[in-house]
Structures are given as C-alpha cells and as structure tokens.
C-alpha cells in the first residue's frame, strides 16, 4: 500500500526532481580535446608513466576511428572540441572534509555521504563531474580486505591490481566511445573483493553531472576474486539543461572461479524536456568476464533517463559452468531514444545465460533491443533463454527488436522469443471502472509488466525504480 502511495505522490510532482544545479566553485580545463588535455588529466591525477602511455595509446586509436552509425538512433553531430573534459569542485581546505554544498547536494539526491547507522547497508562512492568526492565505509570494508575506492586513488595505492586488470575486458580500441573514455577517463570506482570474502554491504557508485558543457567519463573496475561475492549498485542524475551533455563510461567486471557479482543500475540521467530539447547522451560500454569456473554475473538495469541511451552490458562466459543473467527495463517517453540490450558470448563448456528485456515506449520515442547470443565451437552444453517484450503506449512511438543468434556448436540449446503489444483496452477498462484514473492504471499495468525485473533489484532500488517508471510515464496517455 505504501508503495502505491509512493507511486501516486510521485505522479503528483512528476517533474524531473533531480534537475537542480549545485552552485559551487569549480575548476575547469579548457574546452577541447588534444594530447595536451590527455596529458593534463594524467598529470593532474599524478599518474605513473604507464597510465599516461595507456591514455595516449587510446587517444591515438580514437583519432583513427569514426563514430559508429549502426544504432537505430538519430544522433545530432557531437563536437568533441566543444566539450570540457575535466571539471572538479575546488578541494576543501581540510583534506578529510567534504564541501558542505556537496553534502547537501547528495543529501537532496538521497545519497548519504555520512556513515549513518540507518543506512549502514550501503557504501557509496560519490562522483561529482570528474572527481570522486567521497567514498564511505572504506575502513569497515578494509577490515575484510575489500578495496573500495575512487579509481584515481587505486592507481596510486594499488597500481599492481589496476595494471593487472585494467582494460582486460574492454580493450582501449574496443569501440569509438571506449577509446575516448580510455584516453580521458577522470574518475569512477575501483573495487576488489579478495578470495573467499562475502562483501558485508552493498557497494554503490553515484554519478552526478553538475557543470555546464562538461562530458563525464567514468571508469569502474570491479574484480571479484575466487569464491567472493559482491552486490554493486549504480545510480546517476544530471541537471536540466537545454543542451545535450555526453556521458561515456566504461564498466569492467572480472569474476574469478566460484565468485558472484550482482550489478544493478538505475539510470536516471536528465531525459530532455517534452519537446526533446536537452538531455544526456549516455554512450556506455559495460562488460563482464566470467573468467573462472562456475563464476556468476548478474546484470539488472532500469533505464528511464537520458535523451539517448546506447549501451549493451555484456558477459563473456569463459569459465566452464559459468552463468550470467541480464534483466532490463528500458522506458522511453517524449523524444527519448534507446538502443540497448546485451551480448552473451559463450566460450566455456556448460555455460548458461538468461536474458529478460522489457521495453516500454511512449510519446514519440524509439526503443530498440539489440542483442547477441554467440556460442563458440568448443562450447558444448550451452543453454540460453532470451525473452524480449515491448510495450507500446501511443501510436507515434516505435519498438524494435534486433537480436543476433549465432551457434557453432551442435550441443547448445538456445531459445529466443520476442513480442510486441500495447496495453490492452480490457486491462485499462477493468482498472478504470474501479475508479482508478487512467494514468494510475497505466502505471499499475507497467509496474506489473516490469515486475520480473524490478523484483530482482535490491529493495531501496526497487522502490526508486517503480517511482521513476510512473513519473516518466506522466502525460503519455490520453
């Protein structure tokens, strides 16, 4: 009941509530992208020579690449020389303190930067524009041997680990935006769970874009060593602006033997206004490697924000008997566009994957599922099931499904199914005649449609996700 009231109250103030800006003194690098900027970022972070070399190498690769155009997306030209690649709040006078303005900002977003008892279940790494401003519970986690810190700190304190795992899943030349990110990435989270350790709390990264004209290039690296377990959450928001801003991230996950990683995202970047002005371009490369035997990786994502979303959280199932699941809800409204899905590459024997994707398009939006299930020749006993459903609300939106299934082994069993439909008049009528308004009825039906995915999210996230779904559907019916 409380949850339903939450939905209703959410509907009442359906504006993008995270769209405020924080007025804080910040320092910026000049606009534009060249080798000097790459060097300046590296120098600013006091990085070792190998890291700079890595960036420059990626930058040269990026220069030789062209922006891909295969997505079912209409992307206005992006001027990469018109973006600020580094912006950071001025460092506080005392080292250990966080600017109260920032604390207020994150409080407003519901992200506590204090280690309060009530929320001790979640450790947060908060990233503001190009830098991480605070990582909570580092000490508590360190007692168990867990490393959870901003990426730039990891480069200083654990260079051997970073070097060992960086770019092992997403090489710098993987794709256009991965190369760009590898050259100019500023901050993100690094997480290492040692052998046999079960992480006692949820870890989370929260990304906030604040400054105008900046691009955010986060880099997250999660390593789960043998037999360990971690649940990781990611959230993101940005102010409302009429111009588009670029967010190009890389998330790499390495799962060793018998380890398990859950990665959940609630993506709530500013989606642009009702006329399609502004919003974030969210071009992200997320990939996990199930390296060891019986390793497990679970992706859960709720995508409600961004003007354009272009991402495919993928898993390479290399260890024998490894398992990966991808659960996704992608909602687009007004003029939003999404081209998202997953890739499951089965290399190990007896590997199993499951894909459940629920797309909802409303307004004039375009929502595509694009996926790949690939079985290598040596991978016997592979099992995959994919289910992609699309829901259309209104007659001006589009819902598309572009799966690719490739099988090179006679022992595999793969299934793919996809359906497209609209909210049935009968369902609506049933709810309407019980006195539920049309909008609430749609929110209820969509909530039910997406519940397969929502129920896999950690509790706080599930409530937030439900609220976002109903808020973002506002005005899409009638």
């Amino acid at each position, binding site marked *: 009941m409380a949850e339903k009231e939450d939905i209703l109250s959410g509907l009442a103030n359906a504006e993008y509530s995270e769209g405020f800006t924080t007025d804080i003194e910040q320092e910026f690098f000049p606009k534009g992208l060249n080798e000097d900027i790459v060097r300046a970022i590296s120098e600013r972070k006091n990085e070792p020579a190998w890291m700079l070399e890595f960036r420059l190498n990626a930058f040269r690769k990026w220069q030789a690449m062209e922006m891909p155009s295969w997505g*079912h997306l209409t992307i206005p030209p992006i001027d990469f020389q018109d973006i600020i690649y580094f912006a950071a709040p001025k460092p506080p006078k005392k080292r250990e303190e966080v600017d109260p303005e920032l604390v207020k900002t994150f409080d407003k977003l519901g992200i506590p930067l204090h280690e309060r008892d009530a929320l001790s279940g979640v450790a947060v790494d908060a990233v503001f524009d190009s830098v991480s401003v605070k990582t909570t519970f580092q000490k508590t986690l360190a007692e168990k041997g867990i490393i959870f810190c901003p990426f730039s700190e990891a480069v200083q304190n654990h260079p051997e680990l970073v070097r060992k795992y960086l770019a092992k899943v997403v090489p710098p030349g993987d794709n256009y935006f991965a190369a760009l990110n590898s050259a100019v990435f500023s901050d993100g989270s690094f997480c290492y769970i040692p052998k046999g350790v079960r992480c006692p709390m949820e870890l989370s990264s929260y990304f906030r874009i604040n400054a105008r004209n900046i691009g955010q290039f986060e880099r997250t690296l999660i390593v789960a060593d043998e037999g360990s377990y971690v649940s990781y959450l990611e959230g993101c928001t940005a102010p409302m602006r009429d111009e588009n801003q670029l967010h190009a991230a890389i998330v790499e996950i390495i799962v060793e033997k018998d380890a398990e990683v859950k990665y959940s995202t609630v993506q709530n970047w500013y989606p642009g206004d009702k006329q399609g002005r502004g919003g974030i371009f969210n071009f992200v490369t997320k990939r996990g490697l199930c390296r060891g035997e019986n390793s497990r990786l679970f992706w859960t994502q709720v995508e409600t924000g961004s003007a354009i979303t272009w991402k495919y959280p993928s898993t390479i199932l290399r260890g024998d008997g490894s398992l990966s699941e991808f659960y996704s809800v992608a909602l687009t409204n007004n003029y939003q566009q999404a081209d998202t899905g997953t890739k499951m590459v089965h290399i190990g024997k007896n590997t199993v994957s499951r894909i459940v994707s629920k797309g909802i398009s409303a307004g004039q939006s375009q929502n595509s599922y694009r996926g790949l299930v690939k*079985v290598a*020749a*040596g991978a*016997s006993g592979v099992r995959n099931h994919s289910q992609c459903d*699309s829901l*259309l*609300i*209104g*007659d*001006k*939106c*589009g*819902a*598309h*499904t*572009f*799966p*690719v*299934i*490739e*099988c*090179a*082994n*006679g*022992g*595999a*069993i*793969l*299934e*793919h*199914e*996809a*359906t*497209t*439909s*609209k909210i049935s008049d009968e369902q609506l009528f049933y709810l309407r005649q019980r006195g539920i308004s049309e909008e609430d009825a749609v929110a209820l039906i969509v909530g039910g449609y997406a519940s397969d995915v929502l129920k896999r999210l950690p509790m706080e996230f599930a409530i937030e996700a439900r609220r976002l779904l109903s808020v973002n559907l506002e005005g899409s019916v009638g």
Partner: protein
Amino acid sequence: MDRLTIGKGITRSETLLLRGGESRAWDITVCSGASLSLVIIALPGGVGKIDCDIAVQFEGEGGECQLKGLYLAGGSSNVNIKVNIVHNWPNCISRQLFKGIVAERARTLFFGLIMVPEKCIGTEAYQENHNLLLSDECIAQSLPQLEIYADDVKCSHGATFGRLGDEELFYMRSRGIPLDEARRLQMVAFAGEVLEGLPEETVSEALTALEMLV
C-alpha cells in the same frame, strides 16, 4: 528478381525448390483480401551457395501471407535466407515458419525482418525460426528483427537452436530402432510441420535429401 502479385481476393499456393548453387529473389505484393501461401525448400547437394531473398508488401487491407521454409544444409554448403515483410497496410496478417537442419561444416543464415510503419494498426505478424544442429563444425545464425512504429499490433518472433533429443533417441533405440533410423525419424518429425500438405514428389525429394544428412 521475380515479381509476383496476388490480385484482390485471390488465394494462391506456391512452392519454391532450391538446390545447391541456386539463388532466387522474389518481390511479392499481396492485394486486399488476397492470401498467399509460399513454401520454400532449400536442398543440399551441388556446390556453391543458396541465396533466397523474399520481400513481401501489401496493397490494400486484409491481405494474408503465410511463408514456410525448410533448409537442409550439409557438406560445406552455405544457405542464406532473407525475408523482409513490410506491413504497409492496416489489418494484414503474416505468418512465418522457417526450419533448418544444419550438418557437417555447413553455414546457414536466416534473416527475417517484420516492419510495421506508422498507422498500420491491426497488423498481426508472427515469425518462427528453428534450427537443428547436427555437428560441432557447422555454424547457424539467426537474425529475427522487429521494427514497429504502430501501437495496435500483435507481433512476435521466436528463434531456437537445438540438437536431437537424447531421450527420444533412447526411447526409439530401446525399442530396437537403429541409431541412424532413430535420428532420421526425429529429423522427419522436425521437418514435418513444413512439409505437410505439399505434393508427394516434393516431399519425397526433401526426405531423400534429409537422409543424406543423417
């Protein structure tokens, strides 16, 4: 490219037999109230590649189009089947069922696009693609695609990849049916859905070809 128009209200059945090295491209228009049933059978043998390209569009409301296909690929053959159905009129129906048996070092590709432009409501479009893989050297690909710009539609696609069932084989073998025969029977059952209702000579040619893959 062959053109085929099914005139208003006409019901028509066609069978298309492709042997190794043959290629066909058909551009089909189904007029209002017309109904087409097309069966495509790609047989192994010969050298080179089989390319089959089918494009279907509608001309008026209430058209119906049923496509069935069976592709048998062995040796190092290469079979490409492309189906492109554009539901450019409201209230039309299309049904597709494509089944493939892929053996030895063969490569097959099934590409099927269902496209429903804006305002083409009342569309029903279904597509199924099933692949039976008999070896570890073959490669089968399936790209079932849906592109939908109208809301009041019913569209679905499904694709599966699998092997001969061990339990079914065991059942038959425990009743004295030799392994090869048991395998053949399963394959016949798999292909049956496409073959039923076809002229006898076509069926027997398909079954003979199927035997080559056992």
